[in-house]
């Protein structure tokens, strides 16, 4: 839709103070005069219609009417389609609606709607056409747009160059009303990079590559970055609740539970089209909205007592493909809408219909299937049993929309989709119920996406319900947590078991079958945190009042391997167990060297603060932080080194580590020297201060004619008084001391 008078921008209006009566506005009056009595407000102009002859015309009108009546009321005789002299239509039509509101709705909803594959409707208000299109309103001369002179911007990735040359990672900490970014200093106090009061109103969030720090306010979202932590972008989505980025940081999705309402005086970034919408997708480069969406009405869920549950909004509602070329939204039960970036148009102008679809997920990296040369992105989805049709899990290739693989399943009560980070595997965790629906069991259906024909392997040795699952990043092992009872809201959560799985050893370049490695029983653990580099994993108990263990495991332990595991590609070893009372969150730093665990005051009030561990589980730091809300490591973009360069580094690791170890030792030494030096100074200062104070005090006493010790004389006097009263007594005290003790047994 063309911009209309209704949403003239605020900045276009002159706000200077002047006497209204003095201004001659006759020219403006003429320009913006709206003649209501003409009644053109109920008319819209439709462009982009196909060319039709007189005979085809009624057919088109009828077809059009169907579309037009979705937003308001109109009749066949209220559509006027002018015909050209050659007997063919002029490809546009006038339509009268029964009210101006309906006409406005038509403009809002039908503009840019596809009529068929070739034709897209353009709908404008009659009055707008008149206002903007009238002769003289459009300048015939072309005036080139003014290009702003180039201005140097701040280096947004400067944070990757640690000034101390140690490749440290940063983290953001949100406590009380303060947000601060710090360098992690392992055992020492973190160095503050920046600290600001009231930086955010709701929460903070890093962009996926760590470039921006997001702050969330009632007025919208702001992005911060660069060495000076200046504001980089603003996205004024009022009352925004949640924010999500595309993986390449090009786009951002904002969501508010409250539909956007554009005030009469307009909105600086959003237009009237965005009125009533909940989601806005923005281009980060230009800070402009690309498209906005309203909330989908999901059928209100009803529990077994017939009570309506509050509507749930899945987040992220818009899921991005690995390369951010596509973004898709689930319309639960019916379809998946895939949009193409950067235009945000619906792929092939239609949503992908999948009956009953419950959930979907994009492959987290661009898949490389065996024998597939063309570009593709994959997503997987699942549908439940409908009637006599089995439940299905499917893999769809985009943009071809071909279904690459489907799998039929029976007695499914729920399914969860878990991609491995390289998109090499997809594990579908299927919760199955027995015929009586009384007992539950879980099977894992593992799709080997990279292998020819996408074979599926089933792990069905699990007797209990799986409550958590996690793939090793960039690896092929996984951890599950199971429990015997279904998870319910009980005061004491049931005991859980942690199981490790890995592939068998196989010949050549292939990956063997997934085998059970070990199960640890009678645990309380409920969360799995893999190192971003794989190999190490932390199994934690979080959100638990009674226990709060963190178990650090190594899956490639270099020590002796048990005989039973000799055919498996893992050697499991528990390295350490830590305890962090009240822990609510755990996160690895992006380098995989450190683990931070923290207790957030959002989730519980006690002992808020964080612990820092190295990858082995050795505690480096413990800091109680009053009202700690968030602690998030700053992500890093992927390395720029080639595979070969990385290999060389790995080969020469010993050389590097020698240098680093030396540096560390020196730093610690100099730190120790500095501490001692500091103490020496503090001690000297203290004694100097004492000397001065004591001297002053002595002088003052002398001036006042007081004795040096205020009490000595008093005590003497008292002692004297006492000895007057009583006779002097001699007190004898007998002390016995055992010098030696020997015991002899006399026969």
């Amino acid at each position: 839709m063309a911009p209309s008078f209704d949403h003239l921008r605020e900045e276009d209006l002159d706000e200077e103070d002047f006497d209204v009566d003095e201004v001659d506005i006759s020219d403006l009056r003429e320009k913006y005069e709206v003649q209501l009595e003409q009644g053109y407000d109920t008319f819209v102009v439709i462009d982009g219609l196909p060319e039709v002859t007189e005979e085809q015309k009624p057919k088109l009108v009828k077809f059009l009417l169907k579309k037009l009546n979705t937003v308001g009321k109109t009749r066949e005789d209220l559509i006027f389609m002018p015909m050209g002299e050659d007997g063919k239509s002029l490809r546009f039509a006038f339509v009268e609606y029964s009210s101006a509101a309906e006409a406005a709705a038509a403009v809002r909803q039908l503009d840019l709607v596809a009529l068929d594959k070739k034709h897209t409707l353009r709908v404008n208000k009659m009055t707008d056409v008149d206002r903007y299109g009238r002769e003289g309103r459009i300048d015939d001369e072309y005036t080139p747009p003014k290009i702003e002179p180039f201005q140097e911007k701040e280096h947004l990735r400067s944070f990757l160059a640690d000034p101390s040359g140690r490749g440290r990672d940063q983290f953001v900490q949100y406590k009380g009303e303060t947000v601060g970014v710090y360098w992690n200093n392992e055992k020492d106090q973190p160095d503050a990079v920046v600290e600001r009061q009231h930086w955010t109103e709701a929460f903070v969030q890093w962009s996926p590559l760590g470039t921006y720090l997001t702050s969330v306010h009632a007025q919208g979202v702001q992005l911060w970055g660069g060495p000076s932590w200046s504001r980089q972008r603003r996205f004024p989505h009022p009352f925004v609740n949640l924010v999500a980025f595309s993986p390449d940081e090009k786009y951002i999705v904002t969501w508010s539970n409250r539909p956007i309402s554009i005030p009469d005086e307009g909105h600086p970034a959003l237009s009237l089209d965005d009125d009533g919408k909940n989601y806005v997708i923005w281009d980060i480069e230009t800070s402009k909205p690309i498209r906005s969406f309203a909330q989908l009405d999901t059928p209100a869920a009803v529990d077994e007592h017939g009570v309506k549950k509050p509507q749930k909004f899945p987040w992220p509602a818009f899921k991005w493909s690995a390369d951010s070329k596509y973004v898709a939204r689930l319309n639960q039960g019916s379809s998946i809408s895939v949009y193409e970036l950067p235009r945000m148009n619906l792929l092939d102008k239609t949503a992908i219909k999948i009956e009953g679809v419950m959930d979907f997920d994009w492959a987290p990296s661009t898949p490389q299937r065996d024998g597939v040369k063309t570009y593709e992105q994959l997503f997987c989805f699942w549908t439940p049993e409908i009637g006599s049709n089995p439940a299905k899990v499917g893999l769809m290739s985009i943009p071809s929309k071909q279904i690459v693989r489907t799998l039929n399943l029976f007695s499914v009560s729920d399914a969860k989709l878990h991609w491995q980070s390289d998109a090499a595997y997809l594990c579908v965790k299927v919760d199955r119920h027995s015929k009586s629906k009384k007992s539950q069991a879980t099977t894992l259906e593992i799709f080997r996406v990279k292998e020819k024909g996408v074979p599926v392997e089933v792990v069905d040795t699990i007797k209990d319900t799986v409550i958590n699952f996690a793939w090793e990043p960039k690896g092929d092992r996984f951890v599950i947590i199971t429990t015997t009872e279904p998870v319910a809201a009980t005061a004491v959560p049931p005991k859980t078991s942690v199981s490790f799985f890995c592939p068998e050893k196989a010949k050549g370049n292939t990956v063997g079958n997934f085998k059970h490695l070990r199960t640890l029983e009678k645990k309380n653990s409920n969360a799995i945190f893999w190192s971003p580099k794989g190999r190490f994993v932390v199994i934690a108990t979080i959100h638990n009042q009674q226990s709060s263990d963190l178990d650090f495991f190594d899956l490639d332990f270099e020590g002796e391997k048990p005989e039973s595991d000799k055919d498996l590609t893992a050697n499991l070893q528990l390295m350490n167990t830590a305890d962090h009372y009240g822990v609510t969150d755990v996160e690895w730093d992006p380098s995989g060297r450190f683990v931070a665990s923290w207790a957030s005051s959002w989730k519980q009030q006690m002992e808020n603060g964080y612990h820092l561990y190295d990858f082995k589980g050795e505690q480096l730091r413990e800091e109680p932080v009053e009202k700690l809300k968030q602690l998030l490591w700053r992500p890093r973009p992927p390395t720029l080194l080639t595979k070969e360069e990385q290999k060389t580094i790995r080969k020469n690791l010993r050389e590097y580590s020698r240098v680093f170890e030396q540096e560390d030792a020196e730093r610690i030494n100099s730190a120790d020297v500095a501490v001692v030096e500091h103490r020496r100074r503090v001690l000297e200062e203290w004694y100097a201060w004492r000397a001065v104070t004591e001297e002053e005090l002595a002088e003052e006493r002398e001036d006042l004619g007081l004795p040096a010790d205020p009490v000595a004389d008093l005590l003497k006097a008292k002692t004297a008084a006492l000895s007057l009263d009583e006779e002097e007594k001699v007190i004898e005290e007998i002390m016995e001391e055992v010098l030696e003790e020997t015991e002899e047994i006399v026969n």
Partner: protein
Amino acid sequence: MRPILLSGHERALTQVKYNRDGDLIFSTAKDQHICGWFAHNGERLGTYHGHQGAIWTVDVDPTSTLLASGSADNTIRLWDVKTGKCLKTWDFPTAVKRVEFNEDGTKLLGVTEKRMGHLGTIVVLDIKVDVEAEQSDEKSLTIVCDESKATVAGWSYLSKYIIAGHEDGSISQYDAKTGDLLYNFPIHELNNPVVDLQWSQDRTYFITASKDKTAKLISAKDLEVLKTYTADTPLNSAAMTYKKDFVILGGGQAAMDVTTTSARQGKFEARFYHKIFEDEIGRVRGHFGPLNTVATDPTGKGYCSGGEDGYVRVHQFDKGYFDFMYEVERERQNRVA
């Protein structure tokens, strides 16, 4: 360092105090009587009966002749240490939260509560250090705290200033002769009351404890903050050790904030910090409620703490304590010697 447990009180302790010789300990609790104890073995010397309400505070004059106490029954009472006889009672419109003798025991200050239309005040009474003498009824000075009520107060060296800690976290310095306010500095975090104030031996500096989880060492002359000790729990009391450069902080989550889930939650430990370096050195566990008050032996041999749990724990320092020294301290000692 096996502590002596003094279980003479039935309710939460409010203050413990050593006499100047370090051989007696006086303790007050909310259970309406004062106890006197022998410090070296924990035997009870006696009790002082007469108050009709929770007793908030106690102090003994430097010659261990007189004992003063302040109570929620709106009185300050003066006692004969030796006989337990109540020598004098002064009545006030509100409860008395703190009493303290000056350095020669000739003056006594009292801090009264703000309540029922009465502003908080600091009053000064002249004392004759003699059990036979008639004590004066008249207050020799009254300081009215109209900004924020005083919670604690004490006498500086030479009885030159009265230093008061306030409910809003500030510290004031008053001229002890005229009662004029000389300074008022916001030293602790705003609206975190100063809950304890104890003196160095020569009364040239003092330590304050506050609910803002810090204790501060402050110079009496210009109210300059010399040191800050940060704990992880709200503090109730702070004391300096004599002979060694340490401070002892006591605190713990208030009873209403403690949950029942974890025993380690309460942080009911006495914390030792190095007075000069501000480092935490160690903790002493034992109480099963917050520590309401700590006091140190003026001869430097031990300390005692009184808790919400109703017990006083008397500790004698052992050899390790006296031997402990930072490298730089030893250095200095060797140089001086």
